[in-house]
């Protein structure tokens, strides 16, 4: 956190060399005001464009935040922070995982009241750990044939009615059902998940089925990060009762169900946070930026 203060003040430079850590530039409110950044190309996921998602989110946020501008964190629903009201900044896609360049501000930029520079961002970017996606191969499959002729497949109809197939690169697992639908898990990014799903489809094609690649959709994304200080979970569950559930006898972490964005966070005493339930990467980042100031409030030294 001290590193933030030592950085030179932002001048809206579009060049990435000015950035110390990508995280800071992503979520700094300063960067979005008339800096004239060119929007970065967005990775298309073939079903719901991330671009459309972003625009929709921005519109929602702009509509939602207009009436509550100037009221830090008083909304009953989410722990909204002052700087997180600058919606266009937090919903991003061009983040470290793919291009590593600046966030985009697509769409009309309504100038909100500028957030104070003191409301720093966390400087921590959650890393994605798992992506679950589905795709429809568009034809009925004979699972026995697939299990017989593929090296990397296992099929035990008594236990589970699908073939479990694995590939080495990207290291993922797929569940292939006889209806032709497939679930792909284990990838670390949206693009990897898509590539892996395409490889599975290609294997099925080579086995003689007329496989297509229809309706690829990311169903769930899991991210994790470390805030590097211990957290008083007992305090957190007392003040955020309606969102938190902490049962140390059952599970050592606190389960925080954020309403906006709709993400479930597992918060541990060590400071590690797991975020899950996202459909797009931006939701994970936004959820973490929402929770970080709350966690800082429960950081305690003995």
């Amino acid at each position, binding site marked *: 956190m001290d590193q933030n203060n030592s950085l030179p003040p932002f001048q809206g430079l579009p060049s990435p060399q000015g950035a110390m850590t990508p995280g800071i530039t992503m979520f700094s409110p300063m960067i979005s005001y008339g800096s004239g950044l060119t929007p970065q190309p967005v990775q298309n996921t073939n079903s719901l464009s991330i671009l459309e998602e972003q625009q929709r989110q921005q519109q929602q946020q702009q509509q939602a935040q207009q009436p509550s501008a100037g009221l830090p964190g008083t909304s009953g629903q989410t722990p909204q922070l002052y700087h997180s009201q600058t919606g266009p900044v937090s919903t991003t896609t061009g983040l470290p995982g793919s291009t590593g360049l600046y966030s985009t501000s697509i769409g009309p930029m309504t100038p909100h009241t500028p957030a104070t520079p003191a409301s720093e961002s966390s400087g921590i970017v959650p890393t994605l750990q798992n992506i679950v996606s589905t795709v429809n191969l568009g034809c009925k499959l004979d699972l026995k044939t697939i299990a017989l002729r593929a090296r990397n497949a296992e099929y035990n109809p008594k236990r589970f009615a699908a073939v479990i197939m694995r590939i080495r690169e990207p290291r993922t697992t797929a569940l292939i059902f006889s209806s032709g639908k497939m679930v792909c898990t284990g990838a670390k990014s949206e693009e990897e*998940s898509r590539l892996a799903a395409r490889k599975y489809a290609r294997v099925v094609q*080579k086995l003689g089925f007329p496989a297509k690649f229809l309706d690829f959709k990311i169903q769930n994304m899991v991210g994790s990060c470390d805030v590097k200080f211990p957290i008083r979970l007992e305090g957190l569950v007392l003040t955020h009762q309606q969102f938190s559930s902490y049962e*140390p006898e*059952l599970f050592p972490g606190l389960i925080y169900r954020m309403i906006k964005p709709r993400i479930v966070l597992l918060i541990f*005493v*060590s400071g590690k946070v797991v975020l899950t339930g996202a459909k797009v990467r931006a939701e994970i980042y936004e959820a973490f930026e929402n929770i970080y100031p709350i966690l800082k409030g429960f950081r305690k030294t003995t």
Partner: protein
Amino acid sequence: MSAAGLRCPGCGSSNIVDDDLYCQAQLVCVDCGSVVSEGTLADDPVGGTDVSYSRTTEVTRKPCLNLIKGLERVKEICRILRVSSEIEDLALTHFRQAYEHESFINVTLQRKELLAGCCVFVSCRQRDWPITLGTISCLLNADQTLVGGVYQNMMKILNIQAPFINVTDVIEAHVQEYKISTQHVPEELAEDSKVLSKRAVALVELAGDSWIVTGRKPLPIVMAATYLAWQSLNPNKHRLRLSLDKFCQLAKVQKRKPATTRITELKEVLCKLGRELPWVREPVTQNDVVRLVGDILEHRHTLLTRALRTHERAKEADCTQTFALNSLTEEVAPSQISESRDQTANASSVVQPCPNTRGENQEGDGDENHQSEDPEPNWGKRVLFAPPCVLHAKRRRVERPVQNVTGDEEISDSEIDSYIRSPQEVRDFAQMQKMASCSDSGKS
């Protein structure tokens, strides 16, 4: 009914009488005996009578037998725990509500009993009666994870919230279970439960401050605190020699496995504080810290501040040492920045100046020689107290770096072919499967 005007289709006679055969009215011709018409059965309305069968045979609905038994079990548990009638009524309401739900109506009797226990548990929590899930599991004689599953299911169905119960509230009730008053054990081992619970509470509060409690199951900590409190109240050789196992046997409580680790962790914390006692000359070890527990707990706040200060001074000394080594090869500018940082850092007790100075130095000259430790030092080692899971962090396998993947790359044929069996392999595999299934059917 008379059969005036009817003629028998068989013989044409008009001599037709009413004949009740098996309570069914029939019109029969006397002369030839043929049945002319069969009566009310044929006259029943289509689709059955107006009154349905179940309603005509209905008896007054009795509540389900298992529901009654379940409610009795709830009352039983409440009486064992000696809770107030308010809690009992609340538990009964919850049980009735949850029982009707589809997740609980068609389950095993064991699960229904667990539901009864969970209803009591949640009612106690809602009325601020301190109780742990461990106690309920013991009462129900069931596995705690099972009970936990039923509990969470029930909470979702009933859509209620239970306030969080503090560990310290549970201690007094827990300590009363221990049979170590003068009636049960010899004099040198006996202890009054009020005094014992008071000291145990102080120990648990200290444990809570030093990150031993958060995220852990509460009962092993309570057990560890009780054991240490008992030992320290009268640290004679009898008590000090008794292990946790023997202590639990003596007090007739069931030992909890994690309690041994908690004892070690608590003793470590006590050692760190014990070192700050001004009248202690020799070094404090785990073996002799028990004698000092009374003093430590009495002055624990002062000792805490002193320990933090000592720790910081030690860190600064460490820093200036390494800084002195580094500064031999550095320019002036970075050192000036780090000096001002040290000054600001002294004011607060939280910020650790060392890593930042090191970080600054690294960024300043980018000299690889100065990175003597690993790239991500464990932050837990730099503070006085840290959660044990941070201090003994698991070594994670090194994550492979995220490559720049677009998702639209070309997929090479050779790669896909590596996942497909050759025809020979397919034949071998099929043969093996056949042999395996033959031998299986041969056996069975």
